[in-house]
């Protein structure tokens, strides 16, 4: 009895996150999964409920037969969904690439700044999170629109004579995504750069490497764990992004998150929306698993070194 209690208390630190995951991730996922197999109907809820009360084994199989793959058939037959998936992948990949291109030098400059400055710089990166993300996207809308801030400034400076069409373009969507997710790139990259012992760089210089060679051969490889973490932290949420393409993109911007919202709110077709969500999770599981693996192997390497 005592040992059972002791075993439980020892496992408690593992059980708490496990329950958290069960309650807040797995349960909603199975609800969505179940809806995706349901049939659409007009009414409340807008799908034929299945698995409400199971009465015996026979009833279980009966209810199982009521499930349908119809929503998935729609996803496969209508190439709109495929295109939206591929378009999301492309947008997320391009945005991640640019976030890295901008974020790495930022993080590098931060890690090289005087020690006393670093908390302030870190704060500056985190500060935008103090304002709602929705408000910040709306602000971009105000900046980018025809008679918005950016066009006015450019006109005043006589850089352009005609206002540019910036809003409702793919450019605006990329801008919004890169802007929003840049901190998710900067923070892990900075954290891994900051951990690199400066003597590695000195050793490389001492052994005849130029500043640039030392950077490529030593600093970049050692910051790779942060780069990988940053890329996934940008790529994964960008893939499912809905608000940014909805507010900044035009009707031509195809993204799967936006498509899901349309199914749910405009078409009121919960089963198809649920099927889209399930497919999205399936697609994202691959990079998430790769990410986890990378994190684990990095941790192992650190332990070996320590």
């Amino acid at each position: 009895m005592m040992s059972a209690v002791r075993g439980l208390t020892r496992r408690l630190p593992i059980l708490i996150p496990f329950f958290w995951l069960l309650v807040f991730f797995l349960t909603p996922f199975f609800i969505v999964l179940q809806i995706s197999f349901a049939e659409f109907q007009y009414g409340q809820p807008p799908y034929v409920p299945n698995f409400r009360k199971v009465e015996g084994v026979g009833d279980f199989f009966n209810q199982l037969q009521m499930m349908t793959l119809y929503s998935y058939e729609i996803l496969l037959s209508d190439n709109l969904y495929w295109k939206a998936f591929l378009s999301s992948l492309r947008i997320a990949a391009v945005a991640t690439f640019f976030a890295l291109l901008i974020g790495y030098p930022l993080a590098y400059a931060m890690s090289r700044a005087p020690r006393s400055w670093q908390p302030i710089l870190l704060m500056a990166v985190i500060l935008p999170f103090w304002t709602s993300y929705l408000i910040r996207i709306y602000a971009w809308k105000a900046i980018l629109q025809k008679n918005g801030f950016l066009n006015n400034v450019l006109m005043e400076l006589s850089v352009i004579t005609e206002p540019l069409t910036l809003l409702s373009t793919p450019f605006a969507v990329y801008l919004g995504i890169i802007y929003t997710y840049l901190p998710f790139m900067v923070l892990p990259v900075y954290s891994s750069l900051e951990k690199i012992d400066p003597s590695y760089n000195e050793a490389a210089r001492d052994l005849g490497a130029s500043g640039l060679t030392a950077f490529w051969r030593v600093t970049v490889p050692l910051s790779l764990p942060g780069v990988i973490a940053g890329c996934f932290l940008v790529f994964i949420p960008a893939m499912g992004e809905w608000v940014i393409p909805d507010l900044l993109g035009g009707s031509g911007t195809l993204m799967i998150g936006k498509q899901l919202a349309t199914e749910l709110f405009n078409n009121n077709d919960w089963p198809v929306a649920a099927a889209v969500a399930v497919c999205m999770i399936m697609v994202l599981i691959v990079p998430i698993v790769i990410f986890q693996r990378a994190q684990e192997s990095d941790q192992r390497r650190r332990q070996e070194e320590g």
Partner: protein
Amino acid sequence: MTQQDTLISPAPTTGFSPWAEPDREPLVQFRNVTKRFGSFVAVDNVSLNIYQREFFALLGPSGCGKTTLMRMLAGFETPTSGEIIVDGKNIVDVAPDKRPINMMFQSYALFPHMSVEQNVAFGLHRAGGAAKSEIADRTQRMLKLVQLDAFAKRKPGQLSGGQKQRVALARALARSPKILLLDEPLAALDKKLREQTQFELMNIQEELGLTFLIVTHDQQEAMTVSSRIGVMRAGQLQQIGTPGEVYEYPQTGFVADFIGDTSLFDIEVQGREGDYTLAKWKGADSPVYLRSVDDSPVSEAAKVFSVRPEKVTVSREKPTGEPNVFAGKVVDIAYSGSQSVYHVELAPGVVIKALDTNRLRLVSSTITWNDQVWVSWRARSGVVLGS
């Protein structure tokens, strides 16, 4: 060779003394080098010559500026003023990768993402012009030199501290630098391994005929490995000399105290009696007898008197024939196996240390706590210092 022998005898490089030859051009010259970090003066007007094939040790407590001095030679710090001449050229403005100098870092700084082999070859690839096979050959030879050829494919994370130290050494030596800098190279090793490695370093230095500059806070290490020692304190070089000179003829109280063990007493010179100089001190009512090595009178300016524990004899019977014989009480005994150091109180608050080698295997020494004893030393054994 016991530890005591290494402490007293000058380093094994007897006969090698280029610093004594006036025409000899030094390999490295620090000329009035000063380094300030803000208002802090890390290195204060240091001038120092290091000669080819020397194993020079910079010794001092942490924060004394020894590491900064070395980092200026490596090129990681720029002097605020002064010149650093290597092989006749001022290298102050030369980038670290263009200097004929390599450094072994205290943390070893082995690239964790590269194998042992890749670490050693790193500097060879940067040299340019060398063929792949040449680089591989040289890498192999360097790894053989440090007896790590079997570990070529391992990552630094899979090596022990001692093995890492060897890889760092092989990597720094691979480019055949004119000068090898060693920053506290053995600090991370345990005592046994450290002593063994000290001799290996000396052998490698002699075998390759290179110039080594080591930075250390471990006086025993400096004494063992080096041809000469520069003792630093608060940014200044207090004394430069062979281990024997620095130990037996310290020029300041700091050097006497920092290197080896000593007892220091304030003195006031009173007068002369034959070859001896008499000085008043707090150890006893009777004066202490001083005598310089060349029998010249001891300067009136002498303020401090230093005597090493191994030069002081402790006995139960009053010894005869020495002018310096004083009575006291044993207040402490530091037993370390091969020897015991007796702390003898001569007067309230005045304690002298006397070392006795434990030649006989005794469970308990004949002299013990609170015993009334006599301490004595030869007049020439003491050293007088200005401050």
